[in-house]
């Protein structure tokens, strides 16, 4: 059992929790994820570690409530317990040797972007961060990202805050004007990552995307998270979650992510009936 030490609501559906998990905290590096199970009947859900503290043994998780299990997680308060947490899983991102990096986060993907922004900044790279949200009150981690970025841009789809438009608008502008960008990192909804990868391919700039495939065990045992990378099948959990954005079969990824839509709806309906 893992106690929730702190909880913060970053945006209406985006929450941040801190849990005590010393074994995981001391091993985590940017890009790693954990799998948790809220209670005995819960699903195993993969979530990226947003931050960690080796000394206090605390792990920070930021997540968006998208379905039954994440809503249940979001309903927990300080002092409540999470039944199981396992990790750190997946490969961390290799950050060495980059001079100028553009990092883009879309929606709750921004939370997953944060440890990478911090990591590259601490490695001494020039960091340009672009975060995009649908509307102003969904913009998260503004201050934290700004602290670790040399340049920082916000975009909103409806123009209620920052630049009116998409993260790719800002990226295109940068790519046109600056020819010394040596890495682009994009984390967010699949269409956003795909748009970024398509754009950077034209400029021939290395691009890393972080995939959010469906998983069960997260240790390479089930293969639910398989993705096609450059024509080869890979497991997101052990081979990723970060991959070369120019090689990902996004079409297949989108399709695979939609497989349990009906069941997810059913789980939420059932829960509503129980609560009524």
């Amino acid at each position, binding site marked *: 059992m893992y106690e929730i030490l702190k909880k913060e609501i970053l945006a209406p559906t985006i929450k941040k929790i801190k849990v005590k998990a010393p*074994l*995981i905290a001391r*091993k985590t590096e940017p890009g790693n994820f954990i799998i948790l*199970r809220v209670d005995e*009947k*819960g*699903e*195993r859900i993969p979530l990226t570690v947003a931050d960690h503290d080796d000394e206090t043994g605390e792990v920070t998780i930021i997540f968006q409530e998208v379905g*039954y*299990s994440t809503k249940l997680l979001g309903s927990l308060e300080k002092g409540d317990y999470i*039944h*199981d*947490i*396992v*990790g*750190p*899983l997946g490969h961390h991102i290799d950050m060495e040797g980059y001079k100028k990096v553009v990092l883009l986060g879309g929606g709750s993907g921004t939370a997953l972007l944060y440890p990478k922004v911090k990591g590259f900044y601490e490695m001494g790279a020039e960091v340009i961060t672009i975060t995009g949200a649908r509307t102003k009150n969904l913009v998260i981690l503004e201050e934290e990202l700004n602290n670790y970025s040399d340049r920082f841009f916000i975009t909103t789809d409806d123009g209620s805050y920052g630049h009116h438009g998409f993260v790719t608008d800002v990226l295109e502008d940068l790519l046109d004007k600056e020819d010394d960008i040596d890495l682009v990192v994009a984390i967010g909804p699949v269409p956003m990552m795909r748009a970024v990868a398509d754009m950077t391919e034209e400029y021939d700039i290395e691009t890393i995307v972080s995939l959010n495939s469906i998983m*069960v*065990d997260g*240790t*390479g*045992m*089930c*293969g*639910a998270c*398989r*993705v*096609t990378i450059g024509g080869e*099948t890979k497991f997101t959990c*052990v081979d990723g979650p970060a991959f070369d954005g120019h090689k990902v079969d996004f079409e*297949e990824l989108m*399709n*695979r992510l*939609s*497989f*349990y839509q009906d*069941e*997810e709806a*059913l*789980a939420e309906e*059932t829960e509503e009936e129980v609560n009524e």
Partner: protein
Amino acid sequence: MALKPKKTPMKEQDPKERVKNYDEVPEGYSDEDAVLEAERCLQCKHQPCVDGCPVSVPIPQFIQAVKDGDVVKANQIIKSKNNLPAVCGRVCPQEEQCEQLCVMGIKNEPVAIGRLERYVADYNMKRGTDKASKKEVEKDRIPELEGKKAAVIGAGPAGLTAAADLAKYGFNVTIFEALHDTGGVLRYGIPEFRLPKAIVDEEVEGIKDLGVNIQLNVVAGKTITIDELFADGYEAVFIGTGAGLPKFMNIPGENLNGVYSANEFLTRVNLMKAYKYPEYKTPVKVQNKVAVVGGGNVAMDAARTARRLGAEKVYIVYRRAEEQMPGRDEEIEHAKEEGVIFKLLNNPIAIHGKNGMVDKMECIQMELGEKDSSGRRRPIPVEDSNWMLDLDTVIIAIGQSPNPMLTKNTKDLETESWGGIITDENLKTSREGVYAGGDVVTGAATVIKAMGAGKKAAENIKEYLLNKNK
């Protein structure tokens, strides 16, 4: 009294009923059945059956105790060698082991050793007399080893057995398990109707009673490393991480929605209890037409599970003929009784989709040619014999290999090209103080072979530390 030529039958749930539930299929022996069967044992002096048992259970002795009506004693006799009798009585391939060597079996059916083992284990579990007594536990204790720390990686059959024996020697044992529950393949792989999870729970409780500490949610190679274990005061490590990496066919369409590895399918249903969805929150999607590719026990488990999830047509697609299927006869028979349709001598070559979902599987017919290296006749495709099978779900059960997560993250641990850990005949690896056994060494095999390896490794770890500290 004339010897009965056939095994005392064991009652089974009616196939028409049992495809609608997850209850166990064979119902077990009654006290009378057990005594009748025990009387068939010839009590041979040379005990060939014991040689067929990977953990050397004193078979004639426990059967004699059953015959004498002392089922508690029978259990103690079994437990002196086997830490998981209720599991083995259900899932061991006795027909290839103890029962194959039974003298009765030369002219008649062998003694139903497996059924008797199950009877003894269940009888004692039901009455709470299955736990080893303090005296029994302490008789193997070695003062020099008392309190020394030993780590076991993986809470499957190999790890549980090694841990139990190490604890009996006096070690302070901790098992590190990656999943959120114990049992390994007993929990995530073998379905409830073949091995009720309450039985696994009971057996694991028995091992905890020996003083074994179990830490769940710890992925060796990630959360902790073997170097860290030694730094933390552990003096020996046993690796029993099994063969958990699913094989795929590498044919077009394998990443369509509706294609599962057997591991994923069975893990969802067994470990995550998707058959109780939406009470349990992990879904599994099985519609009406399911093909399971493969001919082993895992394929039979997947096919029979699919029937229970409500699929009308469930096919086994296997590239060889029935007599070459690696699955146990009993499992194949049960699958047939439950309406599973066998499409033998057929090999899938592509899966075709519609709107991203499985729609059809293209198969090619096979015929048997010359014998190959496995001694089985090699299947050869019949030209222009392609045909289409209408489906909505495909489950791939063509085998598993060892998961590289731990070996990749452990320095100087030598492995085979296919991922297995290399050991000597004492199950010692290339790293001092590190032993390995079960599927991670042999490739996917049986529960009992893994248990035999766990036992052997525990004994060698004991010898290693006794010699080291001389």
